[in-house]
């Protein structure tokens, strides 16, 4: 599948933003976060910027972005529509949470809880857009949704830890621990995901696509067109698979190994908490590469008709 830059950025940035919002909502009541107005407003503003920049970026993928509002209508059947609805709804408790910070430096109650729940639902809907597509076996499996959720929790926690470091080092250490644990879980699920897509094959073959398997091995003799068409450009992307092993190693290193090492160093007291923004930026950059690979490594059954593997 062709990795569209707008969608790669959207799922990474919005994922981190919703992850931040989740931890803000969940932890604001528990007293684990610094009780300071500037901190609360800065944190929720950064989460909102990440979320909104991602959502705006996703509309760049549309052929008619001015009609994007129509995407809120079909939530009964479409995960993309559900994601849109959940994304819009999340703004309401997020705004209420920001407002309640003005009144109480330790806001709790319904807005905080609702913001956390809706943020996680939105990320789940994003994951299900991909996980529900049967023709793409690298997406249509049980590892996709858990990874999207853990990636959001990890990138959200590490971003929030970075901001918290400037307000309260003890609270930052709590968030760094959360980021460390969710990062380890996300990396483990990503490794299991890669093992899954490497050791399974698709249910469909050129034999079942053409129904000619009973005649023997089916080979594409002549394609319908001499140039790459929309289908092959959009769904026959091949560049990444050649370098998959190297790119996976880079993604693991930048998204997980390096930021987790910084987290451990911070928690051990070897480096100051003000180094945490470096870890957060590193994790986000690595997550962009991971998300690019998620698209680039995916294959679609339509290429079977062209005699390629899917």
């Amino acid at each position, binding site marked *: *599948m062709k990795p569209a830059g707008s969608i790669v950025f959207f799922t990474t940035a919005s994922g981190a933003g919703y992850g931040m919002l989740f931890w803000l909502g969940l932890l604001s009541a528990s007293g684990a976060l610094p009780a300071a107005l500037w901190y609360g407003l800065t944190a929720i503003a950064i989460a909102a910027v990440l979320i909104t920049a991602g959502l705006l970026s996703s509309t760049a*993928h*549309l*052929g*008619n*972005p001015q*009609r*994007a509002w*129509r*995407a*809120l*209508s*079909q939530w*009964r*059947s*479409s*995960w*993309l*529509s559900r994601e*849109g609805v959940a994304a819009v709804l999340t703004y309401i408790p997020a705004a209420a949470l920001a407002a309640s910070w003005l009144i109480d430096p330790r806001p709790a109650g319904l807005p905080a809880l609702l913001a956390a729940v809706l943020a996680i639902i939105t990320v789940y809907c994003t994951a299900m*857009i991909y996980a*529900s*597509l*049967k*023709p*793409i076996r690298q997406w249509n499996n049980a590892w996709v949704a858990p990874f999207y959720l853990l990636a959001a929790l990890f990138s959200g926690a590490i971003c929030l830890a970075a901001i918290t470091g400037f307000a309260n080092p003890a609270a930052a250490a709590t968030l760094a621990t959360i980021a460390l644990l969710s990062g380890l879980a996300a990396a483990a699920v990503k490794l299991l995901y890669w093992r899954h897509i490497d050791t399974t094959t698709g*249910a*469909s073959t*050129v034999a*079942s*696509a*053409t*129904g*000619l*398997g*009973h*005649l*023997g*091995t*089916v*080979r*594409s*003799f*002549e*394609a*319908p*067109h001499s*140039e790459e*068409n*929309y*289908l092959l450009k*959009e*769904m026959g992307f091949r560049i990444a698979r050649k370098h998959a092993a190297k790119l996976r190693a880079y993604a693991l290193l930048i998204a997980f190994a390096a930021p987790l090492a910084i987290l451990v160093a911070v928690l051990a007291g070897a480096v100051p908490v003000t180094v945490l923004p470096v870890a957060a930026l590193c994790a986000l950059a690595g997550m962009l590469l991971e998300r690019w690979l998620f698209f680039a490594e995916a294959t*679609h*059954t*339509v290429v079977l*008709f*062209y005699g390629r593997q899917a």
Partner: protein
Amino acid sequence: MTSLPTPQPGAKKLGLVIDLDTCVGCHACAVNCKEWNASGVSAPLTDSNAYHADPHGVWFNRVHTYEAGEGQSSRTVHFPRSCLHCETPACVTVCPTGASYKRAEDGIVLVNADACIGCQLCAWACPYGAREFDADDGVMKKCTLCVDRIYNENLPESERVPACVSTCPASARHFGDFNDPASAVSRLVLERGGYDLMPEMGYQPTNKYLPPRKPAAPQAAVPQAETGATSSLLRWLDRALSR
């Protein structure tokens, strides 16, 4: 509404039967489809760089050619591919806007170009590559089963079939109602073992493909001419008398 319609009693199930035994791979169906639809309800079907390097355009119908089997028993099979108007099409249910829909009255899967946002999710959801994005209009386009021909009372009744069917010189394409057990398409499927493409995907395609017939039994080897026969007339006589 992108939820699928509930089946209505007496509703039609319109679709195509494609005969892989008689298809000669001439691409006339693809060309006539392009011609009709470039000026019909889905018009224009964008062509960019049509006369230069890297031409690019929207087509609803593509003809592949495959080889199957080995050696003398191998077959060359021409294979037209277009929208199968599935009974459970995920291209419809994934649509976030309601632009994609399946008609309750005849099962045709269509796109309302005025409501399509061009997110291309339907193209990802279709295992068969039936949908192509029109970059000029920013909307998704697909086979309409020539909905603007089959009900068109301005056309003579004999022409109220999809453009691909009307043009096929080998009569390899048949159009009809699969819900009518007496229709030509239903009988063809029954008699010739019509089958679904990628049934494991669970989309329940309406269109059916007829497999190539078994080849005739190989003929007995033609007797070799005597080595002394040098002229072609003598060789022919030798062979004819040897039978």
